[in-house]
């Protein structure tokens, strides 16, 4: 019998629709996989006790002849930054240990409405601050390709869950690369939609002008299918775009034919530097594939991208310092057991409840917003944001998509950059510009590094609202690469033995 955990969401959905497989069987198979390997991987912070019951309910509705969504019955992993009524939501922080939300995030509600079965909540850097999941208060997630290495961050749990075949689909959030950089280091697919394309209602806010929720999957088509479920206008999110969107699954299917590459103009950014030789080699080989299939590759200039990381580490901490003020020990979350005024209790609670990276960024943000420094730091960063948007506008006047390696190196060792915040921040140099400008981005596997045999991702960026273009182009490249590899890249990942949860 087929191992149900190895199927793509799309293939599993077909088997569910035809009645060949039940959702209860598919859900059981994934829960068994979690039991078998998650002791090693630690992708999940919480496994859903009600998953099988939810799957059985879908099976009953299907048996009764109800017309169900294409993905109904497919299991889904949910990043712990997204609130859920039936599972705790901690955002990887001790300060929210055991927090039970009175409502579901819109993306979770829409997933449930489509019949997706939540398997559990995935690990992440505390409040999504980090590039390795090492800043989770509940211990790091490990990369399924090499358990001594990081799975990326902040959404390392979601990426590792799909890479380790613990879930076919996952939800992530991307503020500076938290969906795309984990995809790069785990050989999976991650999409950051256009800012406002997917609701953030119920996504515990990190930096509100940058955050975006998106799909984490093993194939481009699966990402499109999930994006179709979660996307679209939501009156509960005031930044949600009131725009009609095409089907991204349809775009992925159309793109897989490869027609889109004929005459496609692909831009490579001259000023984007800092990639390892092996990452650059994998990237160049993928770009050569595009060219051989009829794409025109040109160099473009985006002179302000080199200031993006600096601007980001002013804007993000500034917004985070404000968003995280809500953890006041009064209405929800932890309260330190100390004597004194409400302010003393608040300070002690935040001192005990936040990890070092969260404290570092809140203090940095408070500094950047202080009277006397505001113009020099936060104000300047906002101007850099304008310049980066102008760089994108100029580039997209010349090319259809921009291609970059998704991150500077392959997965590094756990602990390697933990004591060097600036080295950790440099991981996001290729992904941050998209968040600053609000444009969509995707990372898909480009191959394995010749140096260490670990996955490398290629990132495509498109103008705002042109998410469908990313799905078409990525699906085309994915088809060419999978054909060359003779199967999905993840078939080459080592088997995970033991490590029971």
């Amino acid at each position, binding site marked *: 019998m087929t191992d149900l955990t190895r199927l793509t969401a799309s293939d599993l959905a077909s088997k569910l629709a035809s009645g060949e497989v039940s959702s209860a069987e598919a859900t059981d198979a994934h829960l068994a996989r979690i039991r078998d390997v998650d002791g090693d991987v630690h992708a999940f912070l919480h496994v859903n006790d009600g998953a099988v019951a939810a799957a059985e309910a879908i099976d009953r509705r299907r048996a009764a002849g109800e017309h169900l969504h294409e993905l109904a019955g497919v299991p889904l992993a949910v990043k712990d930054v997204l609130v859920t009524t039936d599972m705790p939501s901690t955002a990887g922080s001790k300060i929210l240990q055991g927090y039970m939300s009175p409502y579901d995030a819109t993306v979770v509600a829409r997933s449930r409405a489509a019949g997706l079965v939540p398997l559990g909540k995935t690990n992440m850097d505390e409040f999504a601050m980090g590039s390795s999941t090492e800043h989770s208060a509940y211990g790091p997630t490990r990369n399924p390709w090499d358990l001594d290495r990081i799975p990326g961050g902040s959404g390392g749990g979601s990426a590792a869950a799909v890479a380790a075949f613990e879930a076919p689909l996952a939800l992530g959030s991307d503020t500076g690369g938290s969906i795309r950089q984990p995809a790069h280091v785990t050989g999976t697919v991650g999409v950051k939609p256009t800012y406002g394309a997917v609701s953030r209602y119920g996504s515990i806010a990190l930096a509100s002008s940058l955050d975006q929720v998106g799909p984490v999957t093993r194939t481009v088509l699966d990402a499109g299918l999930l994006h179709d479920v979660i996307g679209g206008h939501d009156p509960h999110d005031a930044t949600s775009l009131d725009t009609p969107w095409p089907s991204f699954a349809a775009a992925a299917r159309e793109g897989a034919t490869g027609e889109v590459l004929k005459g496609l103009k692909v831009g490579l950014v001259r000023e984007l530097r800092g990639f390892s030789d092996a990452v650059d080699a994998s990237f160049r080989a993928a770009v050569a594939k595009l060219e051989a299939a009829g794409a025109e590759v040109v160099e473009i200039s985006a002179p302000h991208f080199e200031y993006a990381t600096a601007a980001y580490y002013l804007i993000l901490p500034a917004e985070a310092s404000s968003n995280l003020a809500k953890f006041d020990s009064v209405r929800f979350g932890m309260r330190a057991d100390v004597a004194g005024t409400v302010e003393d209790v608040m*300070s002690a609670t935040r001192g005990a409840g936040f990890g070092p990276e969260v404290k570092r960024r809140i203090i940095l943000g408070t500094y950047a917003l*202080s009277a006397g420094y505001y113009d020099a730091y936060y104000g300047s960063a906002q101007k850099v944001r304008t310049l980066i948007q102008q760089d994108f506008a100029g580039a997209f006047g010349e090319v259809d998509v921009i291609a970059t390696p998704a991150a500077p190196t392959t997965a590094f060792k756990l602990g390697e950059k933990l004591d060097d915040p600036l080295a950790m921040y440099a991981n996001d140099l290729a992904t941050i510009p998209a968040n600053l400008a609000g444009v969509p981005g995707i990372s898909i596997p480009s191959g394995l590094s010749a140096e260490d045999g670990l996955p490398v991702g290629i990132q495509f960026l498109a103008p705002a609202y042109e998410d469908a273009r990313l799905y078409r182009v990525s699906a085309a490249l994915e088809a060419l690469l999978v054909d060359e590899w003779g199967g999905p890249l993840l078939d080459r990942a080592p088997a995970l033995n033991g490590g029971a949860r």
Partner: protein
Amino acid sequence: MSEITPDLVRHLGALSRIQLSDDEVTTFTGELDAIVSSIAQVSEVATSDVAATSHPIPLVNVFRDDVPGDMLTLEQTLQNAPDSDGSRFRVTAILGEEQ
């Protein structure tokens, strides 16, 4: 060389309502000094003729009809509170002795 000192870090901790240990103050002072020196490069290109952008996609104010929406019940509102009297959040003293 930025102006990050242990006293400034302690002051920022107080403004942020985060109690910091002496060890944390020492560590953060060094780290923030390095981070601030690095991110200060934004001022190289942020000249006076460049407009600031606060939001990536231009948006106008979003309004809804002024009618009650889906509200949380009292029980839901208090379900995660560290302490309550059943209808209100309960906290320790708001004002200190000398206030």
